[in-house]
């Protein structure tokens, strides 16, 4: 038991060391969520949702409690119909709390072909860094 734990620890420490060498120290975009379940297919740039920008203004509970965003990148089935109906982003981006949805390019601002992901998440760093424009890793960085 003890031996197994030590081995696990060594493994973890080793992977941590690898992760650290990957880590770009200045990551404002740490926590940015790229949402691309439908956008590319519909000819729009993927959506980039910046957590750093929103958490200055709102506590986590506003979105993940009151507004019902589940903790999973791409896991809420968000589309424009729901947003126009005032759900998800549309609860605020209604021209009232925040600017309204006619500003397509402010949300649809991502590099085309970037898969849905939490940018720079620890698991993304540990498993396989997703290159911009690569289409091979759907849902990388998000857990089930």
């Amino acid at each position, binding site marked *: 038991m*003890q031996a197994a*734990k*030590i081995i*696990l*620890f060594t493994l*973890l420490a080793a992977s*941590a060391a690898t*992760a*650290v060498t990957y*880590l770009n*120290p*200045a*990551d*404002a*975009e*740490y*926590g*940015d969520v*790229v949402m691309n379940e439908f956008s590319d297919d519909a000819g729009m*740039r993927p959506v*980039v949702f910046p*957590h*750093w*920008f929103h*958490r*200055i*203004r*709102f*506590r*986590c*509970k*506003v979105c*993940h*409690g*009151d*507004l019902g965003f589940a*903790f999973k990148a791409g896991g809420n089935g968000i589309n424009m119909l729901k947003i126009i109906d005032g759900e998800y982003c549309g*609860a*605020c981006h209604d021209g009232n*709390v925040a600017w309204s949805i006619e*500003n397509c*390019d*402010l949300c649809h*601002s*991502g*590099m*085309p072909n*970037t898969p849905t992901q*939490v*940018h720079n*998440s*620890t*698991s993304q*760093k*540990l498993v396989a860094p997703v290159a*911009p424009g690569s289409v091979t890793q759907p849902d990388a*960085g*998000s*857990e*089930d």
Partner: protein
Amino acid sequence: MRQKPALVLLTTLLLTLAAGIAAGNWKTLRNDQLHDPSNPSLRVLQDPEEALALLPPDTAGNMVNWVTALQRGIISPRSSLREDREHEILDDDVLMLDTMPLPYVRFPHRPHSEWMGCETCHEKLFVSVAGANAINMGKILDGQYCGVCHGAVAFPLTECNRCHNTDSSTVSGARPGGTLP
């Protein structure tokens, strides 16, 4: 004795240097490899440095110490969309002892309940009984339990010592799942 001022000076210098490395230096949206530089509206969006350079610095994640920023009132994020009602804060720590060979984990309720409601974690992510959740590091790295947020939005999992923060010799008579005021 004469060396003391020099030592203080050196330490200050080193600390400023460290802070200088820690803070600043955020990539612009134009070259963060995430935003499309050919989007004409990109200039309307805020560059991270403009906002984050004003907040208490940190050495990981967004390079911002979000806990301090909130507790000092440097930012005052709303806790509700409609009326800004106060939400419940719980001020105890839960001790997690199954961490060999690393230091114990002392989970602090206060900073967490300042950012989110009890229902964000209870009873879906964690049963609210100390010691009742079969948490281990493998599951956390797999994005469960603490790893739902840490490693995605809250500080990354490479910051071992922020969670493994309590030397076992400093807590006497600790029981698994014991809570501390």
